[in-house]
């Protein structure tokens, strides 16, 4: 009898725990991420970058030409004849971009940015950046979030915030990120990311479950060039881009219990955030917010070497991001392999279905 009672109590405890941890799923809203970019604070540029020395395309091209052995007057003369590195005569471009040496052989700096000296670009000195306190040990490295006024770990912003590429506040994105999101070739071919928010009543404070996953099909655009609302997407059943997160809505703001998330994608190869935090809210029928965490710095930095020079300062960004990486030291080298980061997201309402056609979530307005 006693054993049976103990078993019953145990079962009851498990049931209660499950009921408490997973909120009642009376409402499940579906969204598609339609805006995703590094969270910026370009409005504070003058405070962030008092030296204003990074310049734009022509500035870092001049810098690289001098690094390749041209004298400043020679570089200046050549630059009067071009508007960017794409216009350079082939022999000059070759000299500049294959100035790196690996094992004695000339290699392209975009493939081997490690092989050229750090140009030591200016990094952010300002006080404010969007993000989350990820538990970074160095208080001096922390920003203050302009919205929450809380301390923030966001060394990624510190690394890139003074580059021309990232002088863009929403609705603009950095050149690379805008090119990826708004380039029709990508969006017409590749799957995108879905967001499902479930809870008892999402108009009120309470516990929620957030599911991140990938769609099997590309996003649809509407006639105004934005992403179409209320479209249907099938969720990729693959577990490697599937994160189930527990969170809560409090005073209209949705946050999650820190967790690791991974989304394979078409931007930066994938988004992998360790110790991920989220802060999101509903704006009309959309979701807007920030995701932050520690992410591997190398894929991010390499992304800015893929685009031709007019898009970004490859070597400058690469070395700045590498230098400011602030987590997960490599046991062999001692160098940090991850960098604290924050991304801004927006999501439009969508139907989400599984591969059997069962509805997982529906658009907010149509609830």
């Amino acid at each position, binding site marked *: 009898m006693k054993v049976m009672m103990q078993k019953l109590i145990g079962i009851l405890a498990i049931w209660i725990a499950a009921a408490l941890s997973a909120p009642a799923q009376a409402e499940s809203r579906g969204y598609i991420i339609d805006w995703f970019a590094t969270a910026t604070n370009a409005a504070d540029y003058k405070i962030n970058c008092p030296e204003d020395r990074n310049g734009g395309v022509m500035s870092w091209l001049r810098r690289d030409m001098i690094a390749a052995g041209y004298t400043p007057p020679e570089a200046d003369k050549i630059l009067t004849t071009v508007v960017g590195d794409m216009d350079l005569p082939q022999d000059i471009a070759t000299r500049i971009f294959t100035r790196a040496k690996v094992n004695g052989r000339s290699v392209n700096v975009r493939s081997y940015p490690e092989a050229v000296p750090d140009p030591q670009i200016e990094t952010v000195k300002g006080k404010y950046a969007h993000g989350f306190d990820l538990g970074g040990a160095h208080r001096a490295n922390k920003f203050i979030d302009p919205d929450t006024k809380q301390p923030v770990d966001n060394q990624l912003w510190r690394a890139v915030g003074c580059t021309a590429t990232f002088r863009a506040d929403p609705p603009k994105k950095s050149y690379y990120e805008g090119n990826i999101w708004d380039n029709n070739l990508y969006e017409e071919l590749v799957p995108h990311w879905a967001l499902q928010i479930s809870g008892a009543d999402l108009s009120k404070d309470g516990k929620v479950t957030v599911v991140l996953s990938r769609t*099997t099909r590309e996003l*649809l655009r509407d006639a105004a060039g934005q992403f179409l609302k*209320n479209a*249907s997407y099938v969720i990729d059943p693959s577990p490697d881009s599937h994160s189930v997160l527990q969170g809560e809505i409090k005073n209209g703001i949705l946050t999650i219990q820190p967790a690791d998330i991974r989304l394979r994608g078409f931007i930066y190869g994938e988004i992998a955030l360790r110790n991920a935090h989220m802060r999101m809210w509903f704006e009309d029928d959309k979701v807007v917010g920030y995701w932050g965490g520690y992410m591997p710095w190398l894929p991010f930095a390499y992304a800015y070497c893929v685009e031709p020079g007019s898009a970004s300062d490859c070597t400058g960004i690469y070395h700045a991001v590498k230098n400011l990486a602030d987590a997960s030291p490599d046991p062999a080298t001692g160098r940090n392999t991850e960098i604290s980061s924050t991304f801004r997201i927006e999501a439009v309402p969508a139907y989400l279905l599984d*591969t059997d056609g069962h*509805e997982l979530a529906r658009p907010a307005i149509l609830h």
Partner: protein
Amino acid sequence: MMNRLCLISFGLLLTATTGMASAAEPAAGEQFVSIRISESEYRNTIADVFGADIPIKGQFEPGVRTDGLLAVGQHAKSFSPVSIEYYDNMARGIAAQIVQPAYRRTLFSCEPRRVERSDKRCASQIVSSVGRFLFRRPLDKEELTTRVELADRMADQEHNFYSGISAVIAGMLIAPEFLNRMVRVEPDPAKHSALRVDSYSRASMLSFYLWNSAPDHALLAAAEKGELQTSEGLQRQVSRMIASPRVERGVRAFFSDMLGFDEFNLLSKDPKIFPEFTVDVLQQAQEQTLRTIVNHVARQRRDYRDLFTTRETFLTRSLAAIYGVPILDTGDGGQPDRWVPYTFPSNDPHVGVLSQVSFVGLHSPAGRSSPTIRGKAFREHLLCQKVPPPPGNVDFKAVEDTTNPIRKTARERLAAHANNPVCAGCHKITDPIGLAFENFSASGTYRTTEHGATIDTAGEYKGVKFTGPVDLAQLIRNDPTVTNCVARRSFAYVAGRTPSEEDSAWKNIESKFKSDGYDVLALMQEIAASPLLLAPPVMNTGELAVKR
């Protein structure tokens, strides 16, 4: 080069004028009516004769809607100089394609002895075979001889057999015998002093009606044997054609005409107000309705009236977003949107084809809904009624002002407009129907309010009250005018004239339509084999006529 161009141009002109000359001088005792073939008939014919992958690059002149149908307008349509130029360009392009090695091996039944020279035997075989399908009858001796001689001259001039073939085929593609469907009348050997429509004309009539394309070999063979002049032979061919999947093309072409889908060419929506109305939606909206109709009347052979109450349709992702419903499309990224069968739930307001974008979206201006335009379209397209146009001095400001803070809904704006006694007469017959669909915006999305005010969709249809589009759909379904209209339109579509309600043969067709459970394919079968259709057309004095 100049000589070559001159020769080709002369060749084309010769074949075209030869065609025109032969059309102007039929055999003694014959008369004919010529009816221009439509764009879809042209395209289908090229696809059926030469292959679906032959590109047709060119423009077609828009049709003229007469008595509710473009097909009737085709009976009166002549060729403008611009349209001749369009057809000429298309003809050259098509002819140049089909003589390419990849196509001619399958299309032509012979090869010349030497490619760089003429070959009368092979040219004769090709021209005869192709001409039979393009002209929808065998070429007579003079037609064939003239063209083969031209082909030979050009082949020898150009040192290429296929240059001659290309020129001759291009010429046939701009000949009246191709661009027009001829209805030839000959003396009836069985009835003294009577006339009858000849066999090849019957074949064309049946084929363009049921398949929206030129006759196939079996139908031409039946015509050649005289089988289409007998009731049994005619029924046999009509039954064969009705049973063929190609009848779906005929159904699509007819309903596309009847429902006024040519207006899609002029449709646009303000992307700021209706961003969901994308280019995909514009292209897919008519396809949705045509698929719904084809599935309903041609594949499932269901009651025509149930098209107004059915919840079954086909959707793509873009359309599903308009209707606010989920659909399962398991296609891969970058692939075209799939058409997915979808059934609206029983409590959904989307009921019947009138709730689809092809009606509520097509019959709305760019930035707002219009109950008047929808009501007018319903009466004209589906009840075969004529609604007079508004007077020239009407002030539409009150109706068009969607920002009016007092008259927030279309009903309120129209009430002010319709109180004008000059306007009320027409608006009484259009607006009650159109207002029932006000829950559907100009893009087809569903709404319950307009500028914060609740939309009232109640009204009255032929003395019976309804609360909204679902009720109204049932009333429309049960209205005999609806079935009467589709039957009359179907006849007029092929005959070019509306049947007389007093005609006993027509009454039999209508009665059979009802007893067949309003089966549209059965109706088409009845019409196709009816003596009413095959009666010799009435000749106007302006028609080309020849000495008897």
